[in-house]
């Protein structure tokens, strides 16, 4: 018996091509937005892709929200599906599931950096027609901007995250230093403490080759008065004086020893470890880090202060903080789009946002709650200061944002490790981002 390779390959090829052709033959077409706008009267169950969110007393915020929602809509049951802890893995699992037409999960929590990419790839339900365009006025402009793509909006706000400057109050006091009002003052203060031998590092942040570095760069560029892309995310605007100033400052931080050379390998955890371990005077990090530095087993608990990030001397912007956080998307293939929208909407609105402020350290997304008395009185300073931070969006409006971000963080990382000058890196980053925007990047 002879096994003919050719016939086997032929059969395989046929199968492959048939499958490719068959992929276009899904059901439905464009999602039914009228149905999504209507809260169902009958029994309905929706599955919510989400991760556990700790409350102050160790409970899960998701349980509190679902209970509160249930008392309003007794006919709708919400069940949770636990998402993977790593953002990128969550994205690959979700995108493959939703792209293949799966009806579950009905709604899912996603990063605020995702909407343009998910909208472009038909992975999220467009919402303007469902809730009306005016609905979004209740949220910070930069957040709504991040949730939109072209002429529509693709996710409900859930919670915000933003960057702050954490500092060692005890060390500044010991040397009679004020909390720095500018990056230049910060450099001087850091050197003073370092020279006295009270701390090994001045400022630590996230400089590894990953999304976190893009967030840092977006902030420094905004501090210097620039931005990375234009508002619609179609053209590179990084460069010129602002880009040069931001990158030169970063390079000098490392060259002058204010920031350790190891910063090029630092992610959130590494920079937090350095700060909590008492090695650094200043730390740039996300709001949730407050809980880590003030944890009972933290060696620096009670000796730390937090403020919005400073700005450059002579530049207009200060108090910038990169916009992060998570939002709720509705699966366009959901069998209960009305119920899914109802729950996602509930999580974005006042009742749920107040529950969030009262019970957790997560920052609310709704403007009224962010600036409200309840938030301002919060014993958690990152919550009390939430409204004072000027949110800096990353250039996520482009569906090619991941490539844009990659072009940026790869080049800036080389500056941190001393492998390229700020000017060279800027030039290469601009070229890389332009390629990415045309969909020509790898």
């Amino acid at each position, binding site marked *: *018996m002879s096994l003919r390779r050719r016939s*086997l390959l032929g*059969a*395989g*090829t046929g*199968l*492959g*091509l048939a*499958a*490719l*052709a068959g*992929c*276009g*033959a*899904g*059901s*439905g*077409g*464009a*999602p039914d937005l009228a149905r999504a706008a209507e809260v169902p009267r009958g029994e309905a169950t929706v599955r919510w892709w989400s991760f556990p969110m700790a409350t102050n007393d160790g409970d899960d915020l998701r349980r509190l929200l679902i209970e509160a929602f249930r008392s309003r809509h007794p006919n709708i049951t919400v069940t949770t599906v636990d998402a993977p802890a790593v953002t*990128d893995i969550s*994205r*690959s699992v979700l*995108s493959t599931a939703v*792209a*293949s*037409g799966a009806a579950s999960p009905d709604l899912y929590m996603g990063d605020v950096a995702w909407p343009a*990419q998910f909208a472009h*790839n*038909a*992975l999220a339900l467009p919402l303007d027609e469902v809730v009306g365009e005016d609905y979004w006025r209740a949220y910070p402009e930069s957040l709504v901007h991040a949730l939109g793509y072209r002429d529509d909006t693709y996710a409900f706000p859930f919670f915000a995250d933003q960057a702050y400057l954490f500092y060692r109050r005890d060390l500044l006091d010991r040397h009679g230093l004020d909390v720095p009002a500018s990056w230049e003052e910060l450099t001087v203060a850091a050197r003073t403490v370092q020279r006295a031998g009270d701390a090994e590092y001045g400022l630590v942040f996230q400089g*590894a*080759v*990953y999304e976190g570095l893009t967030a840092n760069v977006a902030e420094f560029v905004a501090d210097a008065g620039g931005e990375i892309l234009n508002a619609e995310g179609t053209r590179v605007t990084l460069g010129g004086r602002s880009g040069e100033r931001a990158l030169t400052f970063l390079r000098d931080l490392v060259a002058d020893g204010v920031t*350790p*050379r*190891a*910063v*090029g*390998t630092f992610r959130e955890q*590494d920079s937090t*470890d*350095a700060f909590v371990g008492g*090695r650094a005077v200043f730390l740039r990090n996300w709001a949730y880090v407050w809980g880590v530095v003030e944890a009972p087993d933290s060696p620096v608990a009670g000796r730390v202060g937090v403020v919005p990030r400073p700005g450059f001397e002579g530049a207009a912007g200060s108090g910038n903080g990169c916009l992060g956080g998570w939002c709720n998307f509705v699966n*366009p*293939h959901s069998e209960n789009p009305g119920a899914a929208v109802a729950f996602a909407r509930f999580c974005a609105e006042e009742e749920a946002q107040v529950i969030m402020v009262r019970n957790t350290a997560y920052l609310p997304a709704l403007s009224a709650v962010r600036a409200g008395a309840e938030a301002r009185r919060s014993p958690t300073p990152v919550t009390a200061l939430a409204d004072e931070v000027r949110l800096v969006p990353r250039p996520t409006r482009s569906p*090619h944002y*991941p*490539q844009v971000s*990659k072009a940026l963080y*790869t*080049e800036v990382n*080389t500056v*941190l*490790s001393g*492998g390229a000058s700020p000017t060279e890196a800027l030039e290469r980053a601009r070229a890389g981002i332009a390629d990415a925007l045309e*969909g*020509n*990047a*790898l």
Partner: protein
Amino acid sequence: MSDVPSLTRRRARTGWLFTLPALVVVAAVTIFPVVYSIAISFTQVSLTYDGLRVEEWTLANYTTMLASSAWREALVFTVGYTLVTVAVELVLGIAVAVLLDRLEVGRGWLLALLLIPWSMITVVSAQLWGYLYNATYGAVTWGLGLFLDEPPVILGTPAPAITAMAVADIWKTTPFVAVIVLAGLVRIPAERYEAAEVDGAGAWRTFVSVVLPALRPVMVVAVLFRVLQAFGIFDLPFVLTQGGPGTATQSLAMLGYKALFQDLNMGMGAAVATATGLLVLGCCLLFLRAFRSHVDEAGEGSTA
């Protein structure tokens, strides 16, 4: 006379019938995905509410890929990394195998110990190496600090990062090479050593002229396995550096992963995967051809 072909045919039919389930499985899990991804690599696909839609059949993915400096850098890194690590592993593996072959006692224990790195899941061992290499509290950094004024930021500087990754790889896979080579060593008959001794060959001469030629077939197997694995290296850079600093440790597999799962660019991801597959296939075929002729020559030489 006329019975013979029909009997053959019937046998053939039975044969096909029995192998059919296996063939279906092979087609479903191997041939279909390969063909499917090759087909995707020649398309510009977009995701729509109706599912995957082929916008056009095009070579654009390949032309973009070949023109991209990221791809060329990844190719150079992957090939260089494969050559160096496999060569070092082969040398070390043979040395360890010879040692084990000579060992009179405790060979089993030592073998088991040696296999621990190999049996560890790479993601876990990479995490452990990550702690050792850490720039602030890593033991290796601390050790280097004893000799150097300013120890390098190991995973944050290109050359040290590549070296560190190669060390982690060699640590893990040398035992694998050693075990395969040991199997070959054990099969060398004692008479050959005796004959070499009678001919007055010293230890080195015996090793070069008797042991190494006899080991050729197993070495081919070991190298093939290793090249296939090393070429697809993903887990070490994924855990240790994410491809950094810059793009210094970005392998072809990482590049494909990023294109597919971060950028959701199916055509490009498939193109990178297909090109990588073709490259490694080509390398292996070339290598096999080169080595087979060597083996044949050696065989003829010894019988003549």
